[in-house]
């Protein structure tokens, strides 16, 4: 066991939890109507709570257990309730309890990302049930495939910190859920603007800082790999924001704060899978590419396809994560400042593997999300009444109001 690695992963765990609570919660909450602010915060908070228990009870085991003969597909149930893990258990160079915790923070943020798809109209109980089942059936297996010695790991897919595992699963599932749930009243032309862009920016800043734990923590060590992962992560965040802002300047002649921070998230989602493979130039290019392409897809989803993926989870996370997964195969090349492909692997070959990984996981996420939502919908109400939607979910779902001034 390495104390230094442990020190850094303890910190990284705190940073990644901080990304969801309050980072992502604020990021999303600022973008909705004032009457739904608490509902968004509550979704993120409640997901963090229930998924923590789910992770302990079974999901960690499914993801990182020893699946024996089925190891290609899942990790089995041998580690439910952390059975057999005590303070002396080690995973790599860190305590296993810590590895469990670090990975738990990923399991929390992934379903929390999906919140952006269904805000302002979903029934709270549906959120809870869906998130629990989704983590068990979609997230935990995919983690196993990619990071838990499953079949995608065997194929040699590169996904350092979760382009496929986190962003593609969440993005694709968000799109499916948004289509199933339907548009918000007023979408797309008569929506109310984000009630507090400053709140969104605070959340974004916390995401940026926390992402250091996400990506540099994924090195699972305090070393040069962590340092370089932090560097490329940061550069991609900055260049993603710049790319999005430039697009806005060109199209609308003003660069907005919400645009800039959205570009930042796009850059971060894009660099995530590649953050263990590429160098600074790779970070720069991936950030710019993420900013431009996610911007474009955001417009298309809303304006061409009229899908109310309300806070653009698919366009930013799904597309960013997939894009970065593909570009990782290119910018890993030492000629472009990366760490180099595995021995005997060609760029084309790797690109193929990456594409296959994305496609399989996207299909799995889409199909399972559809089935899960349909099934749950048979016994839990999916969408609130129109009156509740108009009044706002804070009062309707939680009996509280966001702002009391009089």
């Amino acid at each position, binding site marked *: 066991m390495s104390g230094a690695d442990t020190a850094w992963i303890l910190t990284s765990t705190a940073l990644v939890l901080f990304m969801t609570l309050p980072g992502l919660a604020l990021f999303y909450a600022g973008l909705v109507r004032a009457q739904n602010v608490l509902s968004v915060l509550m979704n993120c908070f409640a997901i963090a709570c229930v998924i923590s228990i789910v992770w302990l009870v079974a999901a960690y085991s499914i993801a990182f257990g020893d699946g024996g003969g089925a190891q290609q597909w899942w990790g089995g149930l041998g580690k439910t309730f952390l059975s057999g893990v005590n303070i002396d258990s080690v995973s790599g160079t860190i305590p296993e309890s810590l590895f469990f915790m670090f990975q738990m923070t990923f399991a929390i943020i992934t379903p929390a990302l999906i919140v952006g798809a269904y805000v302002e109209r979903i029934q709270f109980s549906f959120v809870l049930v869906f998130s629990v089942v989704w983590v068990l059936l979609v997230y935990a297996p995919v983690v196993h495939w990619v990071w838990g010695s499953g079949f995608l790991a065997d194929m040699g897919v590169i996904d350092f910190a979760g382009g496929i595992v986190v962003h593609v699963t969440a993005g694709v599932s968000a799109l499916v859920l948004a289509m199933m749930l339907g548009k918000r009243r007023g979408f797309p032309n008569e929506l109310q603007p984000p009630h507090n862009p400053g709140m969104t920016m605070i959340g974004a800043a916390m995401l940026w800082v926390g992402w250091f734990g996400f990506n540099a923590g994924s090195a699972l060590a305090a070393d040069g790999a962590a340092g370089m992962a932090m560097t490329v992560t940061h550069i991609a965040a900055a260049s993603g924001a710049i790319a999005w802002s430039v697009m806005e300047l060109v199209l609308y002649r*003003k660069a907005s704060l919400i645009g800039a921070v959205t570009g930042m998230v796009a850059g971060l989602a894009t660099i995530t899978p590649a953050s263990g493979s590429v160098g600074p130039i790779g970070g720069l290019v991936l950030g710019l590419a993420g900013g431009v392409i996610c911007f474009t897809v955001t417009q298309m989803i809303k*304006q061409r396809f009229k899908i109310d993926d309300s806070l653009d989870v698919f366009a930013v996370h799904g597309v960013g994560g997939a894009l970065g997964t593909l570009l990782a195969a290119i910018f890993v090349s030492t000629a472009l400042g990366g760490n180099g492909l595995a021995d005997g692997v060609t760029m084309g070959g790797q690109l193929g593997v990456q594409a296959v990984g994305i496609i399989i996981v996207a299909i799995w996420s889409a199909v399972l999300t559809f089935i899960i939502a349909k099934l749950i919908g048979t016994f839990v109400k999916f969408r609130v009444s129109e009156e509740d939607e108009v009044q706002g979910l804070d009062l309707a779902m939680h009996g509280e109001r966001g702002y009391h001034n009089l």
Partner: protein
Amino acid sequence: MKFIVAIVKPHKLDDVREALTGVGVEGLTVSEVKGYGRQKGQTEIYRGAEYQVNFVPKVKVEVAVDDAVADNAVEAIRQAANTEKIGDGKIFVFELQQAVRIRTGETGGSAL
């Protein structure tokens, strides 16, 4: 007595207050309102979606005055609030039947 309601641009509030003080008005009440009129609202763009914000922030100034002061007060507001740009606002004048100062119970002109 008259009751004057003026809808003005927010940044003109201090000028209006001073102008009213100039004609002898000693009290007034203001509130934040939003206006809709010839001056169109803003188009705000968030993540590529355009939001038409129809209402423009304005300030409503309410002041009760003696009949004798009413015309001066209206004129004072008009001049102070005028920027000669669209959206400068309106002044409305009402008949005020009664005014009471809560603290003293005074009524009529001496309550103002």
